């Protein structure tokens, strides 16, 4: 009655200060200014000690600077604070991958995608691993979920086509590659892979 609040103005929650610092930290990480990013994340932790995101930031910085042990500690803190933190599992998976623990990395990437099927880094990490390990079905499942939500994502479409081809499903690969070329006629990788898929399909017809 007395004051009409202009509610729903965006970005006005009580976490605003924390949000600004976290976001700023993320930006500094993207341009490689790690000291400034660390300072932002430190301050963000002071404001919201129970939030996982700044620890993800610390982990990413440590990964970038080759301090894997520190990165692992940071990602584990993030996971403890938020057991559903997809980025924490993804970070831990990357550390496993870095240490050539493919099986451990594979499981952690899957865990990451279970909590957030939109996590592109986990998806692409899993794709890389599955190509190396020859295990496709679970990865195909998550790539398909991702594409349901992001139908025009050419990078993921290409990954999925590659896996279909490796999984001896050339007709599915062909369909996807044709879709990619409809979106981007000049995509050289897609046209090369399409040629390969059609070659396999022609051989299948002959036999």
């Amino acid at each position, binding site marked *: 009655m007395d004051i*009409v609040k202009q509610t729903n*103005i965006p970005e*006005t929650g*009580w*976490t*605003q200060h924390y949000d*600004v610092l976290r976001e700023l930290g993320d930006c500094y990480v993207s341009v490689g200014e790690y000291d400034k990013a660390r300072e932002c994340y430190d301050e963000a932790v002071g404001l919201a000690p129970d939030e996982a995101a700044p620890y993800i930031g610390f982990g990413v910085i440590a990964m970038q600077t080759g301090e894997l042990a520190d990165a692992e500690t940071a990602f584990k803190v993030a996971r403890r604070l938020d057991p559903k933190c997809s980025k924490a599992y993804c970070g831990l998976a990357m550390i496993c991958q870095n240490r050539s623990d493919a099986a451990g990395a594979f499981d952690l990437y899957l865990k990451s995608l279970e909590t957030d099927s939109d996590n592109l880094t986990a998806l692409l990490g899993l794709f890389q691993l599955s190509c190396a390990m020859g295990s496709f079905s679970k990865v195909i499942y998550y790539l398909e979920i991702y594409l349901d939500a992001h139908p025009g994502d050419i990078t993921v479409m290409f990954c999925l086509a590659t896996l279909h081809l490796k999984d001896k499903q050339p007709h599915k690969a062909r369909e996807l590659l044709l879709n990619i070329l409809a979106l981007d006629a000049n995509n050289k990788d897609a046209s090369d892979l399409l040629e390969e898929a059609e070659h396999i399909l022609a051989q299948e017809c002959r036999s």
Partner: protein
Amino acid sequence: MTVNNRPKSGPLVSVLISTYNRPGYVRQAVASILRQTYTNFEIILVRDGGRPVGDIVGQFGDRRLIFIDRDTNRGLPYSFNEALSRAKGRYVTYLGDDDIYYPNHIEVLVDALKGRDQYGVAYSDLYKVNCRVTEDGRRVVLSKNVEISRDFSRMTMLRFNHTLHVSLIHDRLLLERAGGYNEDLNVLVDWDLTRKLVFYTDFLHVPTITGEFYAPVPVDSEQTRYATPAGDCDRISVKRRADVSEFIRNMLTIRSTRPPKPWPKVGDMSLIVLTERLDYATEETLRDIWSHTFYPCRIYLPMPREDLSRLRTVVPNILGVPVSADSSDTEKVDAALECCDGDYVAIVPRDFEVGSEDMPWIESALNPLMNCEDPNQAFELPASSSLCWSAVFRREQLKRARRLGPHLGLIESVLSAGIRLRKPAVEEYPLQFDNLMTGAQEIEKMGDWARVAEVFEYLERNYQNELWMKTRWANALYHAGRYENAVRIVGQVNSKRPTVSTLLMEARARRKKEDIDGAIHLLEKARQVLEGSELAWTL
């Protein structure tokens, strides 16, 4: 914020502060006044009981500081009246004892009023600072938001307050004319002030941020850190509203207040209630009218003298009009018209359905009448019917009709005088902007952001509140994935009056466009505001 080191002077401004048990914060508050770029002011600080602050006052050693030291706690309205009795300024401003002015506050407001005599009041924008208070009393800033930045609307102000007390400057004599603060109130004290002032003057909105008011987050509720932006806080004014019956008592008192006439900016309304006898239904109708009418009015009750003598009601502003027991409705209207002094006259039968709390009822017909230039147009109320007929007229219009056809029934005389009657279209109702805002918020809940963007674009083009609407429009564009347009619109806001939230919004949209350097620049500005480096002058 513009900080201008050149001292500026002009008419004397009286700054009023009432303090109660906040010696730590009141020091900061007074210091923020003493750092004003505008120098011709006096501060009248009232200790309204509570812990002593004499030492703090003495430490400032400034002759412009007048201290009223009282041991008894008498409340804000009493304190402000006491301070006003000592004030000599042409203008008056206010500061909460835990709030601060930026150095530009008085200068911005005085400059805004300079040479604009039609405005007796100006108001700026303020940051509401949600903070966590540490054990040693330090305030950790969680967010700074401009929650209220609304252009002046008289009809809106009659229904609810859309300004902040600390953001106001007003001509001191206007408040004297309005009768000062009502000491029977304990909440909504500021709305009582602004509502009374709209009878006498226009308000000027200056969309510049000139200060901060603090809203501590409840210490016992960690979850509330993630509550909605409008989440309640520990401010005294918020806590006092917890007593609903007291709140309603205060609200109805304010709505029924009729400051001394003449009212150069508000036309009075005389509301004639037609009833057969004084009974429960009549009293119920009177209570409904009282609780639902926000436009100022006086109720005229034509009734036999013996019924009037039995009238016992808490409803204020009722004037009994004695008529004989066998008077017809038309005769009752004629009798009441003889005494009415309102610019507008409404006729309401006893059984008329006043309606729901949220919908303006009589104002729905009054608003188009006030905006209509045709002298022969009057409006029926939306719920009027042939069985229960109700309408609003200009008083002179209705008097003319009755003069021309005194022997005719009421409606016949109106029609034969050439007055056209119709119900208002929905778009003629008052508070259209608020109705459209409610609609937009419903669409937001459904997540149709492209449609929401269209609504806010429409509101921005057709109503006031440019910066507020552009902010909402840009937010909708961002959620609709139209980052380029979001950057363009919120960029326009940030070029005029950046806030933390609009800077953050533009930064996020720029990140989506991979303009990381641009995002960093904006986020650093937001951080500066949040961390108060622009306020390095505070103690």
